Every structure is written in C-alpha cells, then in structure tokens.
C-alpha cells in the first residue's frame, strides 16, 4: 500500500521537437523500469480520464515523455508551461531489459520510438536501434550514444532507408527484438520474424491504467490480457493480433 495514487510534478520544459510531437520533462526523483508507463493528466478542467504515456527517459532529477498530440487530452498537455503541474500515476505495467548475452535490436515506428530510449540507456550491452518515420525523423540524435548501430528509415525516403523500418533487413540473425509502433508495423514484423524472440510494446485505449476496467484487453493464446497490467510488453508468440 505504499502506492499513493496520483501525485503532482512540476513541468521543467515542454517543447515541440517536430510538428505535433512534444518532449516534456518533469522534475522529481523517479524510479521506474524501462518499458513502463505513467497515467498522466493535467489538474482541473479537461478530460475525465488520464492518458497513458510510456517513459522515454529518466535522468537525475527529471523524467522525459515524448508524445504526439492526438486529441484534446494531449493538446492540453502540450500547452503546459514550465512551472505548471501535471498529475502522474505510476510507474505502471511490466518492463523490458536488454541482456548482454542476447544480440538485440530495438525497432520503433513514429511516436513508438519513445520507450526505446530508456530501454537502450539501461541495457547491459548496446543494442542496435532502427527507427522508422513517415517523413522527417525526430529525436533520433538522442539515441546515438546508446546504440550499437543506429539506422533510420523514412517512408518518403528523405532520410535513410526509403520505406518501412520493418523492411530494412532480415531480422532473424538477432536473438531478440523489441518493437513499439503502430499496429500495422507490429503485425508486419510478427509476420517477418521467424527465428528470433520478438517482444511488442502495445498501445491501447484505457480508462484506469491499473487493470480494473478491462478496456485495454488484448487477445492472447492464454485468453484476454490487459495491456496496462499484464503488458504493455508481450511476446509476439503469445499475442493474437
């Protein structure tokens, strides 16, 4: 019962890194595992429910979220200024660790790159990182220090490999893959990968974030599982996508 529910944290900075994508830093001493998320909301007027945002990075004295503005809730977050407060519940969900004895690649698509940074930063050995974007890449420089190999794909071909990040290569020479991104990307990857362990971090509409509402349920070979409580990370073998 040490979990105290929603707590308030001050916004240190909140800036657009590219159109519609924001980086928000919150002050505080945060302890969380890579791959976990928080439920986030602004105090006062706004939507009833909170927004689940994955941890992008944790540093001494602050926590970083990277988020896309998709609706009213995230639009309100994007207007927060330094000194404003936001309310957080968490950290929530399971986690993922890159292990030294496993040759690992992290694959992100669009805003799905967000959780990869803290996963790479806490890895026992530098993973290879593949990031896919529709057009202009964003936030990719942050990954340089933590990547074995860093490769960019853009659908327009403006930067890096032209096409989907999932098509960059044959993935089966890795022992393990961790991917986060839009569902079509995750499905494509599941079909391509035959011979290595694939973990997927899922996004879902959720009301509570703590496993009570069953709103974020996904179908697995072991029945329905909750993205918020049993996930957000699942083995691709387990999921029925």
């Amino acid at each position: 019962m040490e979990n105290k529910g929603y707590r308030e944290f001050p916004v240190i900075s909140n800036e657009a890194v590219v159109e519609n994508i924001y980086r928000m830093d919150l002050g505080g001493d945060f302890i969380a595992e890579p791959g976990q998320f928080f439920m986030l909301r602004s105090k006062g007027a706004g939507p009833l429910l909170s927004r689940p945002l994955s941890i992008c990075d944790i540093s001494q004295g602050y926590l970083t979220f990277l988020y896309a503005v998709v609706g009213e809730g995230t639009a309100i977050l994007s207007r927060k200024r330094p000194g404003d407060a936001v309310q957080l519940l968490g950290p929530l969900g399971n986690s993922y660790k890159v292990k030294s004895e496993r040759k690992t690649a992290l694959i992100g698509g669009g805003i799905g790159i967000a959780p990869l940074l803290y996963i790479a930063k806490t890895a026992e050995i530098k993973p290879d990182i593949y990031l896919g974007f529709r057009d202009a890449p964003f936030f990719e420089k942050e990954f340089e220090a933590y990547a074995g190999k860093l490769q960019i794909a853009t659908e327009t071909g403006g930067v890096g490999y032209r096409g989907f990040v999932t098509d960059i290569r044959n993935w089966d020479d890795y022992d393990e893959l961790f991917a986060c991104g839009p569902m079509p990307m995750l499905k494509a990857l599941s079909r391509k990968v035959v011979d290595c362990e694939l973990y997927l971090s899922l996004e879902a509409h959720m009301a509570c974030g703590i496993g009570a509402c069953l709103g974020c349920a996904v179908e697995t070979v072991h029945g329905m599982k909750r993205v918020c409580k049993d996930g957000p990370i699942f083995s691709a073998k387990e999921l029925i996508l």
Partner: protein
Amino acid sequence: MRTDLAGISLKNPLIAASGTFGFGQEFGEYFDPGILGAIATKGLTLEPRMGNRGRRIHETPAGMMNSIGLQNPSVAVFIAEELPRMRSYGTEIIANVGGAGIEDYEEAIELLEATDISIIELNISCPNVKEGGMAFGIRCSSARRIVRAIRRCCTKKLMVKLSPNAENIVDMAYTCAEEGADALSLVNTFNALAIDIENRRPVFNNVTAGLSGPAIKPIALRMVYEVAKAVDLPVVGIGGISNWKDAVEYIMAGATAVQVGTANFVDPLTMPKIIEGMQLYMKREGIQNLSEIRGIIGGNHG
C-alpha cells in the same frame, strides 16, 4: 456511517460498483478495500466470457462509454479463486450475476447459494452483451419473469440492478418489488452511440455501448429519487458519483447506499476520499446517522 441494506449491516454506505473494481486486488495496491461498505464483483456468468472484441472504451465529455461485454472467469472460478481472497478484506461482498437466459442465471445463483455471500446483485441491465443482460431490463414483463425465477432459487438478499434504458423505471421498480426483490440498485449505464467520422462507422463493434460518469449523474439522481419515493425497498444509488457531495446528494434523494463506478478509473483513491469527505460533512453538520438526511428533499424515506 453504518448502514443497513435490506438487513445486511454495512460499515458505511459506499459500495464499489460492479465492473469498476475487478475483484478488489488491483485497488489493494492503493488502499485497504476493507474500509468500504461493500464490493460488488465484476459481472459473473455461468460460463467464462472473453468479452467483446474491438474498441472497448471511448471517452466522452464528462464521461465514458464502455463495451467490455461481461468479460469474467465464470461463477465457479470466482468462487474457487477470487472469493477466498475477497473474504480476507473484511468487507461485504456482493456477487453481481448476469446471464444469457433464465437457466444460466438460475444455475449461477445455485452455485452462489453454496457460498457465504449474503447479497446477490442481479444484473438485468448490461447493454453490452447480445443476449440476456439488458434484454431483461427494458420491459416489465421480461423483468418479472427473471426476478420471479431467481427469487424461487435465491435465499440470499436479492438486489436487482436496473437499467436506465427501462421503458419506465418506476414501473420496473414496482415489478421487481412485487416479485420479491430485497433491494434495487440503479442505474446501470445508458445505452449510447459514438461514431468514428474518419472511418464512417460506429466506434464500437456492437454499435452502441454504455455511457457512465459525471455526465449521467443528474439523470440517474432523478431516477433514484423517483424510485425511492415510489417503492418501499432500499435503493442503492449509482451514476456519476465522483466525490462526497455527489454521494450526499444521492442519500438526500432517498438512496440507502451508493455505488461508485467510473470515478474508480479516474482516481483509484476516489472511494477512500469520499468516505473521509462524508465523515467530515456529517461532523460539521452534526449528523449522527445518515437516516437524518436520507430522502430529506421529499418522498417517503425521510
């Protein structure tokens, strides 16, 4: 705040609403569920149900829509695996039961008869399953059949959970009272519609889904008021209760107790905060027992 609900003594009138509190475990990480008056379980059915596919949650102004579809492990698994742990909380456990047909309900009740649970909440109001559920809760004639059948096999206290989608909520309440219900809880969610205009189709696979949250509170409160005034049964008020003031409004409208639902999703500590707020309010107003304000706005429960 001790409250008598149809002869069962609750430590306070705050009940966690079915489907918003799981079997209590998740909330145990945030507070001791033993402080609650009661917990209504996730809706239980005879057979396990995986629930609905596709979108299950959609946020609306001051509310949300859900289409979970009674996902649950079955009554038998509940009794074997969840009930013993829930018993350790030291609060009243209310088994919420749904079904596809009268026989399903009867068999589910039979299994629960063998347990030490004292209150059954009969769900005839779930809008999110294809058969049964709310189908029993729209017309008085269907409600009469199911409540009559269940009353015959149920020796526990029988609380019927009413749908706000009933043709006439007061007639529905009369019908349940005539068929021997011990208490009524209302309301379940309002059947509602949301459309995804980009894809030109309904947000939910089932087209409609259940609306809950602060948006429905004034309507639900009016229904509780009307039913409490009309029927000589304890009424448990449900609908958009988010804070202690909302809870007090329901008591003043005539509710014996209240259930908190959607607000548990908004903040896992909502219910402890409501209990504390009500205690402070009673102290400030010099209220010894909630009966002093119950139904105080008029009606026959004052």
